[in-house]
């Protein structure tokens, strides 16, 4: 009973965080262009969720975040959902393999994940017949990586509170590696 209620709370909070990320993205971040590219809050919350709660949550969060983003874009529907789910899962796996959550690790991982997400998106785009210019990719990847690195620590803190986790669950991570 208590467990079900807590689960409901987590679901509600996750939904609110995703919606907030979407609105902030389209209302603010998408207008803050630097070097011809903008940051991506949806991939940021995906990475944060994966860092806090592992590959499972990362994939789910990525799927939901990507799907929400796809709703307001004109790009192929479902492409962000697919990309971000894969990225969330991969970040969860890498975080578990590294087994450390302090220092510069999350920052570096978030930056790399942001860049990888953009590359993956472009790659899958090419597969389904949307030839996004590859020449633009380095700039886009760099800008998204910088945004991710700058914001990952506070966003991870926010998600940790939403998921009701005071400490990163080392026991679980360790079990996963074994």
């Amino acid at each position, binding site marked *: 009973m208590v467990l079900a209620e807590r689960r409901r709370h987590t679901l509600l909070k996750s939904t609110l965080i995703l919606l907030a990320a979407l609105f902030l*993205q*389209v209302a603010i971040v998408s207008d803050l262009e630097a070097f011809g590219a*903008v940051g991506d809050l949806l991939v940021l919350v995906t990475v944060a969720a994966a860092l806090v709660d592992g590959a499972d949550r990362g994939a789910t969060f990525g799927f939901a975040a990507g799907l929400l983003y796809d709703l307001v*874009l004109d790009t192929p529907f479902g492409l962000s959902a697919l990309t971000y789910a894969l990225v969330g899962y991969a970040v969860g796996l890498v975080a578990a393999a590294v087994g450390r959550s302090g220092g510069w690790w999350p920052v570096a991982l978030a930056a790399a994940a942001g860049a990888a997400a953009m590359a993956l998106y472009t790659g899958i785009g090419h597969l389904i017949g949307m030839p*996004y*210019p590859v*020449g633009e990719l380095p700039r886009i990847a760099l800008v998204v990586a910088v945004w991710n690195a700058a914001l990952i620590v506070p966003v991870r803190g926010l998600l940790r509170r939403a998921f009701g986790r005071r400490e990163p669950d080392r026991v679980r991570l360790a079990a996963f590696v074994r």
Partner: protein
Amino acid sequence: MAIPRPSRSRTRLAVLVLASVTLVTVGLRDAPVVRDVREAASTVVGPVEGAADGITAPFRNAWHGITDYEELRDENERLRQQLAGQEDSEAGEIRRSDAEEQLAQLSAALDLPYAADVPTVAARVVSGPRSNFSHAVEIDKGTDDGVAVGMPVVTAAGLVGRISQASGSRSTVQLLIDPDFRVGVRLADRPELGTARGRGRGEPLTADTAIDLDVEIPEGTGLVTSGVDRSAYPPGIPVGEVTGTREGSGGLALDLIIEPLADIENLSYVSVMRWQPAE
């Protein structure tokens, strides 16, 4: 050692990936349900985006002040020089002629020579692309003003794109640089037709044509919409000018490389042509 059982995590990933692949497949077929859902989402997000515009304007300006510093400094320098020049001559005279010049430009924007008999709706671009891979902008006119999906969007210079989504007071314009964008074109002085397609931000358009390989197409030749029977665009809208040619994929005809005439990166006002293809 125990046999490792399949992790729940991997099952979930498989389900999510399958779900997204299904969505992509459905979306690529331009299913009406996807369009409806996206339209509904836009009616929710659009107003919030608009409301946030006013609040965030100072931050945005500060941001552009930082990121476009070089450009601003150059412009500042240019304006200073202009001002210095004005002090020498009769300032009033210059201001007057400047006003006349502006009036002429505005009239040119409103009076589209190639759309003489098509009614147009002037619209302001209220927000740029929403993601790094999006090639669409939002305008502040919608179905209430007679805008409908499929209508061509132009500036005085030429074609900008087409309306891809329209709600009551806002619509989305798919820009002609979108890799998914197609338009039938014709060289201004030749009979052959071709199809121009976008290739993403910062890239020129390409057009495959039926022009023989040995034909010399001079740089700067203009292209207009062909407007052949049942075309999605009326004939004669300027699209771009040829900046180069190359052998087409079949090796039989020329591909043209085209620079769009409209300034796609810096759109502020556009006109929607209230024109719809004949059924």
